[in-house]
């Protein structure tokens, strides 16, 4: 026998993933013997699992990366690339999962669906996301994507006696499976063009084809690009492939809607950036106009639709589509001339701040869930200030941050995107984005208006559980802290890109 193509180092690199899987399996087993009163233990187990996984990243993966001194380590016969970019996203997924779990505990008790599977599924979907962010082989990326997607389908339909929940799961599943099919067809065409399943190999093959075609992509290449991009855009919920998002967010358990809008979206972005920047890099001239169109469509359609919504989860869903539009502008700026770091840095920063502020906003909505009130209609929050002053102030904070008001974190997300647009000379796109940001301010303030200016119909005070307190506290702290003192976070983003960039260049040369 020849030497095995993987060794202990590979296992150490994937230790965070393995630990998370083990903890998720542990939750499934422990849940069987846990009495009903002790179900909150599952959440604690999940949090411990996340803590262990984070520890493994800090003390194992990151250390191995530092010791190697190179631009990322390849593991499992080149199907996995552990670089700072992947680690950055791993941290982001774990943080989002931890906050979501904190926000879920009380919510699930009220819904009377407090099962261990819920937390296990969240951990499993994070495992899928980690594979997506670290995958260099489309096989691994595809399997990671499906692992994440299938866990999320189940989580969306988790309130199985609730008609809205299982309808949302059905719509999400049908459109998700459809988009996966289109994505897989795109991958098969890319494989057909290059004979490779590795992103670096695909890039090299495409480059050769482009060179032999005098810089013109053939029609098959265009179809491959279109189908792959359609699949990817479906996953990040960009217009015109956004139809599933408002339905899925509205019907899903609120805590899961928050999780989907940040973690699932961040994972889809991690995958999109890897595929578009590395694999489809040679087709840059074709996809930039496509992304410009999609981002303008996303901003326009989502901002206009959000103006008329009366359900807060739908409103936040449309606002998240609009945010995707802004982030796509970063991709446009980052790929116009050559792969420049600024636009991509804007996207990573945006995803970081968006994680905290959007989870916070969904967390506040989740905290309003009571035994007989769902609490996601605008009328339900009328006069909230008189019933729950803490949540109201926090909500105002998150909304201002989502709108991009300066001293808060959301400002830096938009700032870097706009800056990169101006640097690359896209003045028209930058001014359009600013106009839409003003639209955004209007509908976010509409929510604030309901909270602070309306009379409360029901005057009872709302209790706040420990999990909510912790989750909302972390989200609010991060939102304010990143806004006031952004340097360490900007440095972290720069750190993560320093190597993604060189890995990209290295991949294309050797």
């Amino acid at each position, binding site marked *: 026998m020849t030497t095995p193509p993987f060794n202990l180092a590979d296992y150490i690199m994937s230790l965070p993933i393995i630990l998370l899987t083990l903890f998720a399996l542990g939750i499934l087993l422990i849940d069987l013997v846990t009495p009903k009163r002790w179900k909150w233990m599952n959440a604690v187990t999940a949090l411990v699992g996340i803590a262990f996984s984070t520890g493994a990243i800090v003390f194992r993966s990151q250390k191995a990366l530092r010791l190697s001194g190179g631009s990322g380590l390849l593991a499992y016969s080149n199907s996995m690339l552990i670089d700072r970019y992947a680690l950055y996203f791993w941290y982001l997924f774990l943080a989002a999962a931890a906050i979501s779990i904190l926000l879920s505990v009380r919510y699930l008790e009220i819904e009377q669906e407090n099962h261990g599977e819920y937390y296990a599924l969240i951990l499993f979907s994070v495992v899928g996301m980690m594979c997506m962010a670290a995958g260099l*082989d489309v096989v691994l990326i595809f399997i990671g994507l499906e692992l994440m997607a299938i866990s999320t389908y189940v989580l969306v339909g988790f309130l199985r006696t609730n*008609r809205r929940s299982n309808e949302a799961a059905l719509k999400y599943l049908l459109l998700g499976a459809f988009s996966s099919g289109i994505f897989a067809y795109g991958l098969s065409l890319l494989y057909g063009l290059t004979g490779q399943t590795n992103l670096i190999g695909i890039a090299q093959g495409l480059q050769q084809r482009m060179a032999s075609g005098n810089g013109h992509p053939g029609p098959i290449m265009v179809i491959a690009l279109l189908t792959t991009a359609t699949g990817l855009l479906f996953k990040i919920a960009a217009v015109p492939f956004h139809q599933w998002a408002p339905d899925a967010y509205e019907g899903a358990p609120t805590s899961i809607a928050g999780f989907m809008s940040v973690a699932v979206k961040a994972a889809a972005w991690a995958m999109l950036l890897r595929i578009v920047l590395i694999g489809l890099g040679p087709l840059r001239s074709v996809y930039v106009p496509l992304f410009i169109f999609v981002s303008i469509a996303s901003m326009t359609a989502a901002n206009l639709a959000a103006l008329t919504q009366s359900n807060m989860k739908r409103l936040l869903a449309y606002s998240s589509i609009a945010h995707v539009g802004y982030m796509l502008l970063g991709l446009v700026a980052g790929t116009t001339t050559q792969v420049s770091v600024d636009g991509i840095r804007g996207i990573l920063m945006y995803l970081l701040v968006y994680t905290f502020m959007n989870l916070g906003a969904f967390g506040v909505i989740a905290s309003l869930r009571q035994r007989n009130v769902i609490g996601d209609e605008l009328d339900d929050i009328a006069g909230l200030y008189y019933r729950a002053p803490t949540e109201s102030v926090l909500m105002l904070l998150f909304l201002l941050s989502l709108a991009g008001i300066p001293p808060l974190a959301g400002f830096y997300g938009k700032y870097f995107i706009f800056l990169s647009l101006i640097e690359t000379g896209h003045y028209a796109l930058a001014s359009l984005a600013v106009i839409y940001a003003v639209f955004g301010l209007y509908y976010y303030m509409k929510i604030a208006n309901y909270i602070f200016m309306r009379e409360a119909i029901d005057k009872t005070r709302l209790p706040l559980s420990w999990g909510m307190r912790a989750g909302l506290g972390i989200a609010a702290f991060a939102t304010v802290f990143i806004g006031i003192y952004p340097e360490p976070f900007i440095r972290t983003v720069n750190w993560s890109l320093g190597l993604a960039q060189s890995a990209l260049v290295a991949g294309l040369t050797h």
Partner: protein
Amino acid sequence: MLHLSLFLIFGAICITGAINLLVQRHPINSALSLVVVMGSLAVEYLLLGAEFVAAVQVIVYAGAVMVLFVFVIMLLNAGEEEQTSGSRVAILFGIPGMIIGSVLLAWVLVARSGTGEVALGALPGSPRSIARLLFRDFLLPFEVTSVLVLIAIMGAVVLAARPEAVEHTKKEG
């Protein structure tokens, strides 16, 4: 010549099955035409030399997955699909869209790509060579697959298990 005629025969069966799936109104008929498509595809895989894929196609796809479909159709006693205004709109846009799409695709695939020919059994995909790849180069995706299957089982149990409190549902509407 044998290769071409076998390809054409089973390709024709495959196309007929796919069209029949779309035309039939009763889900059970659609399911059976899908089995026909999958069976004839298995022969096409065999022609290309992918023997193991062909076997798995018959055992897992045409066997297990389709049995699941038929089982659910029977369980829910699904009848013929009704015509609604939505379906008329869908047919109005869907059929022309499909024709335009497939003509475009056909034009691109036939006219614009000179990608050579494939011999009978061009690439023998025996279990041995497949396993060597699957358990070495693609070990990590393979392991993740096991988690994926676990999720699918667990998810199906979570979602389809009979809710303890049916009364509760009725009240909430």
